């Protein structure tokens, strides 16, 4: 696998990742995104309907949270999850969690982490985790890590430090197990950068992870609501500055177009694409031009300017769907509205 940068403009990296996959002949553009799936299938879509979409990403994101409970089946199947889900030709990246469902906190120990599937919690030690990856045989997989820090509002330095220590421990153990497995050597481990909102810990995580022979880096714990991202963006620049240029940087939990662009400016290469799924679930359709306004709501207000309209925009943004407060973004229209 080889990442070549064509150019870097304002912190944004443009390039290609070549020699990907088991056959070493796939290529991916960066910046790029991954196809979001649930239990190995794009939500609501079949092979046929997915095929009709222009520009489907070359790499598919699978989630361990949806696949861990099928460990036994996949082990018996032997031929890997790609073939099992009917996507034998696709590049596969396996993340730990589903970015759409928040994970409950309090379940990571020094020896294990947990994912949450349909049947409930699946606890994984390093050996169980690697055994599952051996059955899945993805091209890339996120290493077992301690990402709970991002589930809470405020991080204590102690907790942030622990998330870094544990993740490095898991990484080293996984790398050792990978060396012993012919099957696992065909997959690339993605190291996970943790550390919460503590700069010192973030930098330590980045530097230490970069010392290990990982294929790329996952920037974890930068997701949240729009206000938290703003503060975290500053952290993000510092983190990516510590990472080698020739390895891809993925980020979890960021999929809104404006947030994606902000992260690209800070050296991120690959993103998850669950935003369309969220928009669909609230009955809305994406409609936005690629003419980027850094702050679309503000621009609208500047154009119109009255108090009434400011209130209207605020009201429009919040609707209640089936009990949860889902904010409609400015990138979509609500098809359930009468007009």
């Amino acid at each position, binding site marked *: 696998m080889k990442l070549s940068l064509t150019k870097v403009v304002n912190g944004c990296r443009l390039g290609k990742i070549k020699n990907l996959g088991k056959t070493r002949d796939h290529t991916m553009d960066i910046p790029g995104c991954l196809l979001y799936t649930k239990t190995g*299938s794009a*939500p609501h879509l079949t092979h046929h*309907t997915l095929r009709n979409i222009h520009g489907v990403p070359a790499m598919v994101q699978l989630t361990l949270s949806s696949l861990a409970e099928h460990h036994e*089946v996949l082990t018996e199947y032997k031929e890997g999850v790609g073939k099992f889900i009917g996507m034998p030709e696709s590049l596969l990246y396996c993340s730990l969690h589903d970015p759409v469902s928040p994970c409950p906190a309090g379940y990571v120990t020094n020896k294990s982490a947990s994912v949450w599937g349909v049947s409930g919690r699946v606890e994984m030690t390093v050996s169980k985790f690697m055994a599952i990856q051996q059955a899945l045989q993805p091209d890339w997989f996120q290493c077992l890590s301690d990402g709970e820090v991002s589930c809470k509002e405020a991080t204590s330095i102690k907790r942030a430090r622990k998330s870094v220590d544990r993740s490095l421990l898991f990484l080293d153990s996984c790398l050792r197990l990978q060396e012993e497995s012919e099957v696992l050597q065909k997959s690339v481990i993605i190291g996970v950068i943790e550390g919460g909102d503590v700069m010192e810990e973030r930098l330590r995580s980045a530097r230490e992870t970069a010392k290990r022979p990982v294929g790329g880096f996952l920037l974890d714990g930068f997701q949240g609501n729009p206000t938290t991202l703003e503060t975290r963006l500053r952290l993000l620049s510092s983190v990516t500055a510590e990472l080698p240029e020739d390895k891809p940087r993925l980020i979890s939990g960021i999929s809104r177009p404006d947030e994606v662009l902000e992260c690209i400016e800070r050296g991120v290469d690959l993103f998850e694409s669950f935003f369309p799924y969220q928009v669909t679930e609230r009955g809305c359709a994406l409609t936005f031009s690629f003419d980027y306004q850094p702050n679309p709501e503000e621009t609208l207000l500047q154009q119109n300017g009255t108090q009434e309209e400011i209130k209207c925009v605020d009201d429009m943004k919040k609707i209640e769907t089936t009990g949860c407060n889902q904010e409609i973004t400015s990138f979509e229209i609500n098809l359930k509205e009468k007009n």
Partner: protein
Amino acid sequence: MAGAATQVSVESAPRIMRLVAECSRSRARAGELRLPHGTVATPVFMPVGTQATMKGITTEQLDALGCRICLGNTYHLGLRPGPELIQKANGLHGFMNWPHNLLTDSGGFQMVSLVSLSEVTEEGVRFRSPYDGNETLLSPEKSVQIQNALGSDIIMQLDDVVSSTVTGPRVEEAMYRSIRWLDRCIAAHQRPDKQNLFAIIQGGLDADLRATCLEEMTKRDVPGFAIGGLSGGESKAQFWRMVALSTSRLPKDKPRYLMGVGYATDLVVCVALGCDMFDCVFPTRTARFGSALVPTGNLQLRKKVFEKDFGPIDPECTCPTCQNHSRAFLHALLHSDNTAALHHLTVHNIAYQLQLMSAVRTSIVEKRFPDFVRDFMGTMYGDPTLCPTWATDALASVGITLG
């Protein structure tokens, strides 16, 4: 013909059915329906798309499966979004983006099955819309008006539908009223050149009433006839006898549409009895419950037995689901919150029905329909002699014996 019914149009209805082959033993026929949106080979199974959509699949997928006619429900579309809006969207074809044929029902059946507070009078059916609570009268004229706006290729008369489990004078009243409503529909029909109005034979499970209805309705020169009022809660023994009676009295050169029949065995038997067209929600509905149709019956894919079954639903099936996915994967997907599983099964089940009808048709054309029936029953029940009694009796009545 002109003197028979006073309020009936005396224009000769087009002959839309061309017979291609007939079974020399049974009443089975293979044919072609010439409809405004293309030719349809018969016998044909018509999938049901309730609210201008096949639940779970796109019209493009339906087209790719070889479907050339499907159903839309007037009850749902007539109330919401309403005929005016659909007319603006270039009719139901434009609204759905479906290039092939459409058959709409009158809205009558839904009244019986969905509306608890409906009242039938000579005028029509009065009911309360579940969507906005408004009271509406669905008259024969109104039903035809809505269907004219929808622009479907085949439209159905409004009939006075009575459940097949009802007995007594209500059945007779409904039968005679259906005849009067047929005449009103014919009179109200604004587009006989573009849309084919079918009559619906009623009479419940009473042979005399049915015979009367057949005699009267066949005097009206409509392009096709449906056999209605069956496929409810009646016993199969009564069911097949009414179907056989109906086909024996319906003209040979017009299509016979048996409404609401969709189980594989029922389809094969009723083709033998002389029916050409069928519709049923069963295959699409059962898909949404995780059940896949196969020549031996059905597979409840949610069951643990399929957890490690790495073969396709049916190795002989050419549908995209069977080409790309295993039972094990579908099992896993069915236990997730991804609705894609249901779409995969919907595609397969429709493919199964269409492939079945195609195989039936080929056997009729190749003059081996009775053998086909024996093979079919053998596969479905383990042995042709293990086929249900009613089916054995029905087939025997048209000269097909099962081993």
